[in-house]
């Protein structure tokens, strides 16, 4: 009997403690973030909308059209159009499309990207009125220099080394004879260089002239032909827009 | 839309309501006195007329439920319209009692039987309260009796339903037809 009463009093006491604990919270400022008014302070690792970064220092486009992101994407939402420039022999990016309606924001593409070009931004407001509007093209995807700098610093990414400027012509000349096959023995082939820069990001800038005999450079060669033929097919199918893009893009990346 | 049986029963309803209206306006009494019969028995004649029309339309295959409900309501109005208020209440009690008796005899489900018993008990309660109002308004003996009836009915419902549940647990049915263990 007394045990029962004691337990009743005890449980009542704990109920009162609970009530008082909750009631004390009335005296606190609300922790609610009112979203459209105040944007949430998201961490750098947040996986939001995909975007293509430019070099935050030189503002050159980081994509090297290596198609690794396209291959790794489980949803097949990335679609890269590139062709081999006849002058330089390098791959030139014509269009880069990501269907955000398909994307599941797994972040695998950002993992494999050798140049840290494709990144997850903190932007998550992508709602639109049609599914077609969710397919972002190169223009929509490419970040400005300031935005790139912001995300590079936020994600603690190393700043990639700029592409060597004074070497367009020799590189083009060198690339012409060796059309289909990459030249691993040649010193500093420009096509492989940005990849090198990303892979060896922490090495000193002096190491740029290292010969590109690594796996990063040699592996893509096997698939290059197939890619090229695919690209030419695509160009045939839709020549005009891609040509326009191709014209527009180099200007943008240069400037 | 209207099936034949529904049409039959609607026809019956119209006739019954007509008889009731004739009775309420005093026409039936006039007819009776014209025929040399005592006019104060007009309500019984109207009642018999309604019953016979009901039987005829039942024989022609009318909707039974509609005919029974309509017949009872009109017969009730005919039988009580010119009576004392006390007789009115007690006639309603008698109707509840009769319906309860019908349910008790005819229903197969044990729980429905219990519900019919509750209906009969309530019919008795109406009578008690009516007597209390009309005969004994100072001492309220009828109301007190009704209160005790309420108590006993509550106890009866609890025990009865417990028995029904126990039977259901043993025999997996509440059908009265199947409770034939005590045959001989």
């Amino acid at each position, binding site marked *: 009997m007394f045990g029962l009463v004691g337990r009743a009093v005890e449980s009542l006491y704990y109920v009162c403690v609970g009530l008082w604990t909750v009631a004390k919270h009335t005296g606190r400022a609300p922790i609610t973030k009112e979203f459209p008014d105040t944007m949430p302070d998201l961490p750098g690792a947040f996986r939001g909308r995909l975007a293509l970064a430019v070099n935050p220092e030189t503002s050159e486009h980081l994509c090297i059209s290596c198609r690794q992101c396209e291959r790794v994407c489980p949803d097949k939402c990335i679609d890269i159009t590139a062709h081999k420039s006849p002058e330089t022999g390098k791959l030139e990016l014509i269009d880069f499309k990501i269907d955000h309606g398909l994307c599941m924001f797994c972040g695998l593409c950002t993992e494999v990207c050798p140049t840290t070009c494709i990144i997850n931004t903190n932007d998550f407001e992508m709602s639109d009125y049609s599914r077609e509007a969710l397919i972002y093209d190169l223009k929509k995807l490419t970040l400005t220099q300031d935005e790139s700098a912001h995300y590079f610093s936020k994600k603690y990414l190393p700043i990639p080394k700029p592409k060597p400027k004074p070497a367009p012509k020799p590189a083009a000349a060198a690339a012409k004879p060796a059309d289909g096959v990459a030249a691993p023995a040649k010193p500093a082939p420009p096509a492989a260089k940005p990849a090198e820069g990303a892979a060896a990001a922490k090495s000193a800038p002096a190491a740029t002239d290292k010969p590109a005999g690594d796996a990063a450079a040699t592996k893509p060669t096997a698939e290059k032909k197939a890619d090229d033929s695919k690209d030419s097919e695509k160009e045939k199918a839709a020549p005009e827009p891609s040509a326009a893009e191709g014209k527009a893009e180099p200007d943008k990346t240069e400037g | 839309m209207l099936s034949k049986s529904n049409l039959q029963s609607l026809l019956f309803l119209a006739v019954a309501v007509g008889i009731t209206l004739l009775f309420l306006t005093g026409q039936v009494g006039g007819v009776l006195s014209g025929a040399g019969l005592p006019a104060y028995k007009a309500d019984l004649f109207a009642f018999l007329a309604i019953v016979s029309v009901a039987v005829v339309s039942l024989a022609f295959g009318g909707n039974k439920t509609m005919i029974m409900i309509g017949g009872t309501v009109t017969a009730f109005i005919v039988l009580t319209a010119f009576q004392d208020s006390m*007789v009115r209440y007690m006639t309603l009690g008698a109707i509840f009692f009769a319906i309860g008796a019908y349910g008790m005899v*005819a229903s*197969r489900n044990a729980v429905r039987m219990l519900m019919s018993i*509750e209906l009969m008990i309530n019919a008795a309660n109406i009578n008690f*309260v009516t007597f209390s109002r009309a005969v004994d*308004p100072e001492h309220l003996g009828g109301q007190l009796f009704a*209160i005790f009836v309420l*108590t006993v009915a509550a106890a009866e419902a*609890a025990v009865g339903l417990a028995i029904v549940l126990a039977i259901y647990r043993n025999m997996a*049915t509440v059908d009265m037809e199947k409770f034939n263990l005590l045959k001989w």
Partner: protein
Amino acid sequence: MEGFPQLTTWAQANVEQAVFYLLAVIAIPLAYGVVCDRNIIRSGFLLIGVFSTIAGLFILLSAQFLALAQIMIYGVGITLVVVIALMLTNPKAEKESMPALSIHKGPAIFVACFLFMCVYLALRSAENWPVKTDVAALSAAENLSRIGQSLLTNYSFHFEFASILLLAALIGAVMLAKAEPAVHDLNELSANEDKLKSSERADDVVKV
């Protein structure tokens, strides 16, 4: 309705009869529904309607306390218990079949009509009811206090006896409705307990 003398007299003169017939016309179909509806759970709910209209009749008979008790005990308490009992048994089994066997219907109708005619003819033939038409009904407050006083003076024995009856009914209902596990159930139960113990032991081993 104190404070509205004119309204009260008007209502007594005109409304009472109309309300009585309204309640009767509602109640009779509901009562038929209780005994005839194919769906027995619906007839359980209709029973609530019947009891509520009877509570209305009690108010017309100026038995306010009884009307409220009727709503509280009958209309809600008993009927809900009935409905729950219906749901605990298998109402679907009855839903398909007829509510009554046709072999029972004829005698049942005869019994019902006979009972009704007996009561009604008795009512009609009795000439000398000791009716006190001149006495006004007690007011609600007086009614209440009169009932309370009677229950604790003249009817105190009945009152106590009713409480004993209720207690006995409560215990009896609990005993009847309590499920006694059958023998094979008991076996299963002990087997389960064994399993439970062994699994607990297994947990202990894992923890260690």
